[in-house]
Structures are given as structure tokens and as C-alpha cells.
């Protein structure tokens, strides 16, 4: 899989791996490693969201004319993800294992069903809609 779909899907999987590492450190009570791994995970996740919000979504909306379509729901779910990232960071600061794991589990399911929609629909649609322009768009996304 190449193009927008290939790059962004691979980044989803990388975020999942970083998430699993941070969650494991919290479960083991290794707070120093947990903080470091969580910030690595959160940084890549937020960067991924920004690649979409700043470049992909506006271009998609302009190209397809679908302003109130899939991208509106994606933006709303991005807000929910950011809220859960903040909640996890707070639980990490308070060293509250249960609260962190509860927020983490919620984040995981929210994110996975969000990723499925992007990977099955939005990214393939984008690759099709942009055609030969997709490579240039991907370069701009990677610059974020």
C-alpha cells in the first residue's frame, strides 16, 4: 500500500505500538519510563492529527466539496482524543494506575474505530480523489 493510505496507516500502527509501550510501563508501575513513553506516543499522535487537520482535511473538503461529510466527524473525534490524552497525562502525573488504564482503554477503542474509518474510507478516497496530486499533498503532510 502506497500513497496517503500507506503512509498514514503505517503511522497509525506506529502510534499503537508507542501506546502499548506506555500502557505497559504504567501497568508495571515504572513511572519514569511511563512518562517518557507516553510523551513519545502523545507527540506522534498529535503530529498525526495535525497532518490531517492542517493539510489533508482542508484539501479533501476543497477537492470533493464534502464539508459536512466524513471530515466533520473525524475532527470531532480528534477533539475527543485530545481530551483523553490530557486525562491520561493528568492520571500519569497523579500516578493513578486505574484512572490511567481506564482512560487508556477508552482512548484505544475510540482511536481504533476512528482509524478503521480513515483506513477503509477516507484515505483510499483521498488517494482516488487527488490522483497524481496525492504525492505532493503527502509531502506537505509529512512537513507538518
Amino acid at each position, binding site marked *: 500500500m502506497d500513497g496517503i493510505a500507506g503512509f498514514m496507516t503505517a503511522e497509525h500502527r506506529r502510534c*499503537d*505500538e508507542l*501506546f*502499548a*509501550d506506555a*500502557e*505497559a510501563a504504567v*501497568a508495571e508501575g515504572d513511572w519514569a519510563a511511563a512518562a517518557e513513553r507516553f510523551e513519545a506516543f502523545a507527540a506522534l499522535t498529535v503530529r498525526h492529527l495535525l497532518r490531517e487537520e492542517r493539510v489533508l482535511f482542508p484539501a479533501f473538503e476543497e477537492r*470533493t466539496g*464534502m464539508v459536512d*461529510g*466524513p471530515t*466533520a*466527524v*473525524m475532527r*470531532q473525534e480528534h*477533539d*475527543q482524543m485530545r*481530551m*483523553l490524552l490530557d*486525562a491520561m497525562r493528568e492520571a500519569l502525573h497523579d500516578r493513578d494506575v*486505574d*484512572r490511567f*488504564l*481506564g*482512560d487508556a*482503554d*477508552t482512548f*484505544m*477503542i*475510540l482511536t*481504533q*474505530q476512528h*482509524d*478503521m*474509518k480513515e483506513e*477503509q*474510507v477516507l484515505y*483510499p*478516497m483521498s488517494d*482516488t*480523489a487527488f490522483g497524481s496530486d496525492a504525492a505532493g499533498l503527502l509531502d506537505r503532510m509529512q512537513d507538518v
Partner: protein
Amino acid sequence: MIPGGGDLRFDRMPPRWVPLRAFLAAPVLGGFGGLMLGIVGGSAAESRYVGELIGALHLVTLGFLTLVMVGAVVQVLPVVTGVPVPGASWVGPASQLGVAGGSLAMAGGLAGRWGPVIGAGGILVGAGLTVFAAAGIVAAWQARRNPTGRAMGLAVVSLVVVATLGVAFLAGHAGWTTLRRDLTDVHLAWALIGWLGLLVMGVSFQVVPMFQVTPQYPQRVQHWIPAAGFLGLVVWTFGRVGRWSPVAAVGAVVAVGAVAIHAGVTLWLQAHRRRKLRDVTTDDWRLGMASVIVAALLVGAAGVGLVDLGRTGPALALGVLVVFGAGVSVVEGMLYKIVPFLSWLHLQNLVSRREAGAAMRIRNMRQLLPASGPRRQFVAHLVAVVTSLVAAVAGGVWVRIAGFALAVDLWWLAWELAGVVRRSNQDRREVLGAS
């Protein structure tokens, strides 16, 4: 062209109570199946054809498993494949109403030997599943390029075979037509390998790697295993109905081999998962896949003459492994994720729509469903599976014990899920009160 673009709205999902109502009702209905076995006791397991046994079994397979699976297809297929199920807002509730009402009527009718009630049950289940299958096949056909969509489509086609035979059997029990018991095994095979097995495969291709952060299922497994399971069933059915034993044997090996390979691959992937955290859903999947492998070994042992599946005990044990060991386990594990998530999502959407509530902290999934309850309920489920296996072989008082154990298992699940709704309703009132 933008594939599927024009009609794509992720937010066009049925209201929260539509799937939740079915997910809460399902374990209650299934528990009645256990209660029925507990009350009837040993006489229910004297043969595969005792009315109370058939009724109780269908409260679990239709009332619990199918009720949840129908809801899951309507909810999950659009998310996983991007293809909406046509008429989702009424297809889900209508088909679930038919399945729930029909399974109760047929169980009551079979236990009381009331022909018209059995017939009414058959009509209700048949109507509910027809509505679902028509919509499901249309959606799955549009999603056929996706391995999950394809496996789900083959599962729904299998359901058509199962339901057609099942309704014909019910007409026979009601005294309207001749009862074709020679086709019972065909009904069972399509139900357990086709409908249940292929649907679990389709869901697993997406759910296992994403939620447990495992490697992906190999492409060959995703492309060939569901198709092999389905083709194996077709070949076996022709061999069975036409009395060509070698053909039936080849079909059986392929169909059972397909589900066993899928179960083995799933266990291997889970052993290599990056998300090491152990929760009850992971345990439910492991128990489910291990049960499939033991069931496949049992069929294999029968194939080489070590076990006689024509005898009541081994045949019932096989059914227990697939229905309670595999089906109920996987569905319980799924419900423990879906119900808290849907409740959380609903609360979250409510909060984000209300400025005054925006500062409020709502409960996360673990606060909506504390882990200790499901963990203890899982032990009750294990007890139900083990006592049911003993009951299949030993009969007698064990049937009563297994029946009550099954009722405890499923009603405890219902209690845990109802707790999620109760807690989320508390939060909901607070959010509404704050604005």
C-alpha cells in the same frame, strides 16, 4: 469517482438505545435457556431431539448469540468497511425484535408442545432474519473487496441456509409439515461453522490486530480461510445429502480445518501481541479459540473412528464446545468492550454539545465497568462451560447443575452490563442537570 462517497456519513448511526437494548436483552434471554435446562434436568439430555433441549439451546444461539451478532453486523460493518447497511435504523431493531420474540416463542412452544406457538416462533424468527439477511447481503456485496466484508457476507449467506432449514424444522415441530431430522446436522454445520464461525473470522481480522496490537493476520489467511470454510461446507452438504461419503469427508476436513487454522493463527497472534495488558476480553477470546481447536480435534477423532459422534454424549459435548466454549465466550468478551464504549461515547457527545457540561469529568470505560465484576463473571462462565461438558457426557443431575450454572453465567453478564447503563445514566443526569 469517489468510492462510496455520496452517501457517506459516519454520524448516521442508530441512537444509543437501539444496539444497547438488544445487547442488554440478549444475555437475559440466553439465561432463560440455562434456567430451562436447570428446571427440566437430566431428561433434557437423553437425546439430541428433546424439545426442551432444542428450545433451551436456541435461547442461547438465537436469543443470545444471534441477537448480539445481528446488532454487531449493523454497527460494525459500516465502520470497518465504510459501507452502510441499508435501512440500518430500522433493520437492526426489526430483525432483533423478530429474533428475540421468536426464540422465546419457539422455546416455550417446544417445551410445552404447543404447535401454534412453535409455528409463531418460526414465523417471527424467519421474518426477522429475512429482513437482516437481505440488508446484510446487499451491504456485504458492496464491501466484498474487504476481507472482513467478504467473510461477513459468507456468514450471512450461511445464515440464510440455517434459517431456511430451521423454519422448516419448526413447521415440522408445529405439525404443519414432515419433520426432516436427517437434515439436522446440515442445519448445525451451517449454523456453527458458517454463521458463527465465519462471522467471528471476519470480525477478528479487524478487531484482534487493532485492539490487542498484534501483527496482522497473514493475507492468505484473510483471503482464503473464510472462502475455504464456506466451500468446505458446500462440498460436505452435497456429500451428506447425496450420501457420497468420500465427498462429505473432504468437505468436512476443509471446513473444520479452516476454522481450526483461524483459531490457531488467532492464538499465535495473541501470544505475540504488543499490548501485554491482560483483560477479560483477551481471556474470553483465548477460551473461545482453544474451544474451537478442541472441537476440531474431536471431529478429527471421530473421522478416524476414535469417537462416535452419532452417540448423544460426544455430539452434545461438541455442541457445548462450539456454542458455550467458543460462541458465548467471544460474544461476552466483545460485549464487555462495546457496551461501555457506546455508553461513554454517548455521554461524551452529550458533554461536547453542552457548554455548561464541558468542564465536567465523565466516567471512563473502566469507571463505567470496573474490571473486578467481569473478572469474577468470567469464572462463572468457566464453571458453566466445564459443567456443561460434564453434563453432555454424564447426563443426570449434571444437566440441572450445568443449566443453573449457565443461567448464572449469562444473568451475571446482564447484571454487569446493566451496571454500565446505570452508571452512565447517573452521569447523564449530572450533565443534563449542569446545563
